[in-house]
């Protein structure tokens, strides 16, 4: 989370970070209340995201953070989801998984009924043929010295996590070529959707310093996790 925020605050016009979770953990949406997750098994790490939406139990999945200048995306939040989710659908289809983006439908209901991101698919969500959600996503939009910026988080489920067994999972639909290959295809489709070229990179030293500070002062700070 700290590295994602550091990329959002950084000066790359666009950066894509792909990662996974060890150990598996729960991330809360920015405005969710920690007390609504008292039933999460003891010992499970819980972190608060900068992005909105519902909570996610991150198990075996492909997680990505896309931090970029807002003007590289369509102006409306709705349209930006359409662009990015269509790219994810193409990447997943390339390994033989049939899924679709819901173009219509109601938005998810108000919390706390839908405390899990994957519980109720809504407009623009990616679902399998049974209507179960395959990819969770959320955004943060703010202004930095570069101007308006967007952080888009995505979680593409490989295997169903124990706390949210109602989700769709790629392993149920197709053999996975390999996780690095799936990540490569996802990155390629996202870059193509943005008309950008991918350049492999690591965090810049300034970004790494910001990430380290955010890790200590925010994401590992129980006071931040329990803010609400």
């Amino acid at each position: 989370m700290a590295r994602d925020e550091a990329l959002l605050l950084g000066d790359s016009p666009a950066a894509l970070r792909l990662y996974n979770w060890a150990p598996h953990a729960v991330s809360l949406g920015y405005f969710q209340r920690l007390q609504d997750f008292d039933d999460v098994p003891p010992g499970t790490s819980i972190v608060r995201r900068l992005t909105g939406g519902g909570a996610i139990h991150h198990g075996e999945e492909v997680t990505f953070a896309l931090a970029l200048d807002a003007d590289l995306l369509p102006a409306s939040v709705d349209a930006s989801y359409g662009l990015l989710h269509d790219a994810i659908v193409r990447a997943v289809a390339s390994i033989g998984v049939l899924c679709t983006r819901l173009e219509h439908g109601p938005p998810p209901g108000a919390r706390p009924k839908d405390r899990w991101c994957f519980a109720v698919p809504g407009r623009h969500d990616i679902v399998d043929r049974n209507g179960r959600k395959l990819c969770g996503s959320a955004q943060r939009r703010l202004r930095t010295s570069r101007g308006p910026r967007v952080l888009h988080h995505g979680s593409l489920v490989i295997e169903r996590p124990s706390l949210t067994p109602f989700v769709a999972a790629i392993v149920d639909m197709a053999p996975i070529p390999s996780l690095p290959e799936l990540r490569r295809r996802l990155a390629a489709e996202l870059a193509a959707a943005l008309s950008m070229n991918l350049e492999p990179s690591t965090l810049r030293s300034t970004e790494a310093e910001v990430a380290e500070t955010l890790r200590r002062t925010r994401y590992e700070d129980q006071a931040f996790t329990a803010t609400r």
Partner: protein
Amino acid sequence: MRPNDRSYLKSHEWCKIDGDVATIGISDYAVSHLSDLVFLDLPNKGTNVTAGESFGEIESVKAVSDIYSPVSGDVLEVNKDLPDNLEWLSEDPFGKAWMLKVRVSGKSADLMSGTAYDAHCAAEG
């Protein structure tokens, strides 16, 4: 055509200044581009806001966005009913959905007229 009796920021907040008190809110353009608002967090009365800096956060179903202050000063009043009535932001963004009243000690240098803001929105698409 948006109201010309107030000023706007590129980030889509408006402020209407009467004497030394500014009423602050967000525009119809911001509301329509966020869509499906679900949560609003505003500062408490008595806190201080700074021109150009975030004073609150708003969540739509798919995004959390910061709200930036057009002016600096102490918060005199907060629209406490707004977080429980977010539909007001769609129905009356320039009236009933005001967010803060602030005693003005300074203004953002980037404020623009309603006419200029209309052009900015048209350019953003």
